[in-house]
């Protein structure tokens, strides 16, 4: 059987989800954002929720998320996505409302909005992309930047006296009574992509069941910011990010 014989709609096992638009994404080659966008597109399609979903895009690399997923979107001011999501979900309680935020957006400028939305138990899902760096503005230090990690504003590596400690905000959010599901995943292998998909689907289901706030942190790479190849970034992430941000469920009730 030749390759051309196999390439037949009857034999299709994997394709770009229809909710993900055909336009090319602006992300750098190898960027984790693309994988997560694809998963969100798959889940919304499989749940049949395209008509019921409102996404809240952040400021940061994912600012253009609204161009890539074929759903209604609001683009928030930097860090304010959980405030927007709060209002949208309260005014449209039967909708699926999720935010998509990076570590600078969620854990620095938007810390107050994040913590209070979670503490109120808003019935929203928060997708949190943690790559330890500000990608969009050119690789500056984020609250999640690791000890000794180089960035354009910590060119000799992050030090505690100057910059304080890396912020494990997900652990903090798991302490809040308003959160129902807090998990940390990755998307660098087939198995991890599958687990992250399950996690995001559960977060979306929780939003619809009114169980409280769900947070899915995805420990991610920013190979441009880290100045490594995509494959080397994955290795670096496993060796350096995972010890500081260990994978697994932090809370599931």
């Amino acid at each position: 059987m030749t390759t051309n014989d196999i390439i037949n709609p009857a034999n299709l096992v994997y394709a770009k989800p229809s909710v993900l638009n055909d336009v090319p994404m602006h992300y750098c080659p190898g960027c984790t954002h693309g994988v997560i966008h694809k998963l969100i597109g798959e889940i919304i399609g499989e749940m049949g929720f395209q008509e019921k979903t409102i996404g809240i895009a952040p400021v940061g690399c994912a600012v253009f998320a609204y161009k890539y997923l074929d759903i209604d979107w609001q683009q928030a001011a930097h860090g304010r996505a959980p405030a927007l999501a709060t209002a949208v979900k309260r005014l449209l309680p039967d909708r699926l409302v999720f935010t998509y935020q990076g570590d600078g957006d969620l854990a620095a400028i938007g810390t107050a909005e994040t913590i209070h939305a979670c503490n109120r138990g808003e019935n929203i899902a928060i997708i949190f992309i943690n790559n330890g760096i500000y990608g969009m503005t050119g690789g500056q230090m984020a609250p999640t930047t690791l000890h000794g990690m180089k960035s354009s504003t910590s060119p000799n590596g992050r030090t505690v006296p100057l910059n304080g400690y890396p912020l494990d905000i997900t652990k903090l959010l798991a302490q809040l009574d308003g959160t129902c599901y807090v998990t940390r995943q990755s998307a660098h292998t087939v198995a991890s992509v599958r687990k992250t998909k399950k996690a995001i689907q559960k977060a979306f289901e929780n939003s619809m069941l009114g169980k409280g706030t769900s947070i899915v942190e995805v420990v991610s790479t920013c190979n441009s910011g880290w100045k490594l190849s995509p494959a080397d970034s994955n290795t670096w992430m496993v060796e350096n990010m995972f010890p500081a941000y260990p994978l697994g469920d932090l809370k599931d009730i």
Partner: protein
Amino acid sequence: MNNKKKDTEEVRLMKGNEAIAHAAIRCGCDGYFGYPITPQSEIMETLMELEPWNTTGMVVLQAESETASINMVYGGAGCGKKSMTSSSSPGVSLMQEGISYLAGAELPAVIVNVMRGGPGLGTIQPSQADYFQTVKGGGHGDYKMITLAPASVQEMADHTVMAFDLAFKYLTPVMILADGVIGQMMEKVVLPPFQPRLTEEEIKIKCPWATLGKPANRKPNYIYSLQLEAEEMEDLNLRLQSRYRTIEKNEVLFEEFDCEDAEYLIVAFGTSARVCQKAVEMARAQGIKAGLLRPITLFPFPTEQISHYANQTKGMLTVEMSAGQMVEDVRLAVNGRVPVEFYGRMGGIVPSPDDVFEALKKLIVK
């Protein structure tokens, strides 16, 4: 300033802040998001006591900050919902980012500022010192905000209804710029009639841009203000500016007292205008032909009307509870044809009619 309502209507006695809360519920507001600050806290307190979520279904939420409140308003407005917040000067400073985003995303929203004295934490006493912040654009970028200046408890109620109508007509944030006196004082008020909240089907027709979830037969709706291409950014700028010119043409509101034969014109808004009305009566009693023009909309400003009076009067006096802010717009309207003087008090002090009358005699009637 006159409460000329039909005898058959129920007259209530309440604070200006309370009137805003009642009017919001009655005009079909969908969501209020706020943070406590004196002297406007009664707005949210009244809403929480009235529990409109049990009657009209209106959402009322105390947010963690003014930053969160204004962004909740953005979220609600993006869904085509009648969304509002209220605060006082320091809190409104914190909201400027969100107001700029509302303007950039062309979203309808109502913001109430019950002004207190500043700068900084300032005082909880009344002030009108946020005129510049409001009408000149306190946030970044080229935008304008329709600004209503109530001068009575009745207008606090009426302007709430009007603000939503204007916000949705022009897809722009609208500010109700009151001060601590109007917010705190009790007066007679006839509340607006109940209007039901819009259904989602009605919103879909009225606000086809609203993010309510994307049906298969339409393209997705995006609420955003990001324009990386210079030409696209300028297109938005031009569209907004053209809308502001339309607003200037259609929506100017003002009130006049004894202006027809006035030789001396006082220009004042809000609480200052109430004081000045008495000062005009005192002047008239002494044979001085004084009049009062009270701008009700601060943007759009009654430039034409003030310009018209520059041809008929010998001088003008602008009275404000500030160091003199609106006076600059009066001078622009007059363009040097007659002297425009200023009298104001700051720090939360409300000028008395005697003060204003003395200022009128000293500065203008020389």
